[in-house]
């Protein structure tokens, strides 16, 4: 292929085969993430008919992209230079480029194989396993064992923390609303408070040290950030108050409809948590697609493994676009089938589980920890279930999750080593 054509069309474009391969596979990974995971965020809202699937796709696209661009840099940084130390490859930057490409390729292949066999596999575990595998073959000393240890610890802690939070939130809903004499009135009373919390956390995650490449955000003090977040959250909760008033006008609240009304309020609250999940998911999972790409691109354009500058915003946007492309092209299909099938979880439970899962993912994103959104959501559901919120969870699916959890890292690592071996034999040497 004549790369000079592409280079001429896009000035400054590094038309090197490795970069092109990383771009293509990275986009493919992002596409996969968008296609498969979007239903986790939006499924329950479509199921409860709070959103049409068309609206769900649009909302998911906006929030996935925003999450990826605004908060995606920390985790991307961890994937590109946290797990293995790039400085160990100062003399051989090519090796690191091929290694990152191998990790990306291995993760993409494993995801496809697993999906084919119906296994729920985490893209996060795949990519971390891949980079880790390359570290092993390149010399275990290049692996930052403390970072790797923290990441693995976060895989245990994040679902458990999400579970505890889900338990707490649903327990509050039970205590304040469902168990109350007038669940409908209490739901209307407390809903703006829930809105405040969600919007506050979301806004704070963006403006306080979120977007490092934008000076306005980088320089913002904690107090100012808290003020902004609180202000925007207040606007959000006032808005929600009007929405609830409208629902109340539309529905005649008879004695029997009290519960329906309560769940209607949670159904609209769940639109918010669905956005929250999409945002957190974009923020954490974009790294799985563009982390290795960022490393490859940086080494190629800068000619050095030194990655002191932040992840370029266009790389995050590129990953975000990939996710959006995947969810627009495939997500609608997933969502349409899911909408009719999820009836086993009511909006109040969905709200608690999604709030818990998204919060866990977002906190981990800000800490630069790549975690599995799915595992966090499952943790949230389990937490709700422990306070008797969920009747039945499919036993086979739960065991599938555990099995995939255990095998993904070793398989992605071995696959990376094999692919890197191929590169080493046929290209590098």
């Amino acid at each position, binding site marked *: 292929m004549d790369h000079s054509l592409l280079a001429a069309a896009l000035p400054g474009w590094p038309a090197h085969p490795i970069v092109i391969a990383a771009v293509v596979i990275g986009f493919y990974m992002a596409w996969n993430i968008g296609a*498969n995971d979007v*239903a*986790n965020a939006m*499924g*329950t809202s479509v199921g409860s008919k709070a959103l049409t699937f068309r609206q769900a796709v649009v909302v998911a696209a906006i929030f996935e992209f925003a999450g990826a661009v605004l908060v995606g840099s920390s985790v991307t940084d961890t994937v590109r230079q946290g797990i293995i130390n790039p400085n160990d490859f100062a003399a051989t930057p090519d090796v690191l480029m091929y290694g990152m490409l191998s990790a990306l390729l291995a993760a993409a292949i494993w995801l496809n194989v697993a999906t084919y066999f*119906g296994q*729920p596999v985490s893209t996060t575990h795949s990519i971390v396993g891949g980079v880790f595998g390359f570290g092993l073959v390149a010399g275990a000393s290049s692996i930052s064992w403390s970072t790797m240890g923290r990441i693995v610890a976060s895989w245990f802690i994040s679902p458990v923390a999400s579970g505890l939070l889900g338990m707490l939130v649903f327990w509050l809903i*039970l205590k304040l609303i*469902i*168990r*109350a*004499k007038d*669940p409908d009135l209490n739901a209307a009373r407390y809903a703006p408070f829930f809105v405040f919390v969600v919007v506050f956390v979301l806004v704070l995650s963006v403006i306080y040290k979120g977007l490092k490449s934008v000076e306005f955000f980088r320089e913002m003090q904690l107090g100012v950030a808290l003020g902004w977040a609180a202000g925007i959250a207040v606007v959000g909760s006032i808005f929600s108050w009007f929405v609830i008033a409208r629902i109340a006008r539309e529905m005649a609240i008879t004695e029997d409809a009290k*519960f329906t009304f309560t769940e209607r309020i949670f159904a609209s609250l769940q639109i918010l948590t669905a956005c929250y999940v999409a945002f957190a998911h974009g923020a954490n999972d974009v790294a799985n697609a563009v982390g290795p790409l960022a490393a490859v691109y940086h080494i190629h354009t800068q000619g050095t493994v030194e990655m002191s500058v932040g992840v370029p915003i266009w790389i995050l946007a590129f990953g975000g676009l990939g996710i959006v492309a995947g969810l627009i092209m495939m997500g609608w299909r*997933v969502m349409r*089938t*899911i909408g009719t*099938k*999820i009836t*086993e*979880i*009511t909006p109040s439970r969905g709200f608690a589980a999604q709030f818990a899962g998204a919060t866990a993912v977002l906190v981990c994103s800000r800490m630069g920890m790549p975690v599995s959104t*799915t595992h966090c*959501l*499952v943790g949230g*559901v389990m937490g709700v*279930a*422990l*306070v*008797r*919120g*969920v*009747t*039945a*969870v*499919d*036993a*086979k*699916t*739960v065991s599938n*999750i555990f099995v995939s959890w255990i095998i993904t890292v070793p398989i992605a690592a071995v696959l990376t080593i094999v692919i890197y071996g191929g590169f080493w034999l046929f290209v590098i040497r």
Partner: protein
Amino acid sequence: MSLLQKFFGTSPFGALAEHTKKVHDCVKLLTPLAEALIEGDHEAIEKLHHRMSKTEHEADQIKNEIREQISKVFLLSIGRHEILKFLSAQDDVADAAEDFAVVMRLRKTALHPDLKADFQEFVKQVVYVSSHLLEVADDLAVLAEASFEGDRTQHVLETIEKISQEEWEADKLQRKFATHYYEIEDQLDPTTLVFYDRYCQRLGEVANCAEKCAKLLRTLIVGD
């Protein structure tokens, strides 16, 4: 396919209420059976017995489906063990009702005209106890939605309390009926007396088993 889609298992409450309904359908047949006994219509008794067997078999099928279904899920808001115990207790209700029909068919025993009123009252009460059970089972799905909290749950727990009281009423009517046929034992041949006794026991057993179901439902709902 999305993970979430496969994540939630089927809730057992719908099938559970269906099982209760089938069992209650068996119990409801006690009323026409009692009428047929009073009329001395043995052909009707035979037909009703067949119908009861069929209904009981259908209940059994539902029971097996539920067992199969809950073996595939993590049950979280209620225990698997409690459901199985409840199912087998309901099974006992249907069995007791069917036993009554079987005893009727063993011998063409006529009911003494003096006993008619007491007998009818007793049967009516037994069916009444079981109908409360159906009411509670129908509410289970709604209660699960509220995580077994709130007004509605309190109401259901009160109904369960009432079942115990109604069962006690049935006991009293059973004693009344028995006292009555022993009072006129001189007019009855001994075998007939033995059969009255067996009717009495079987019917009492239906109410007893229904009460046991209600108590198990209570543990299901309260959760300990």
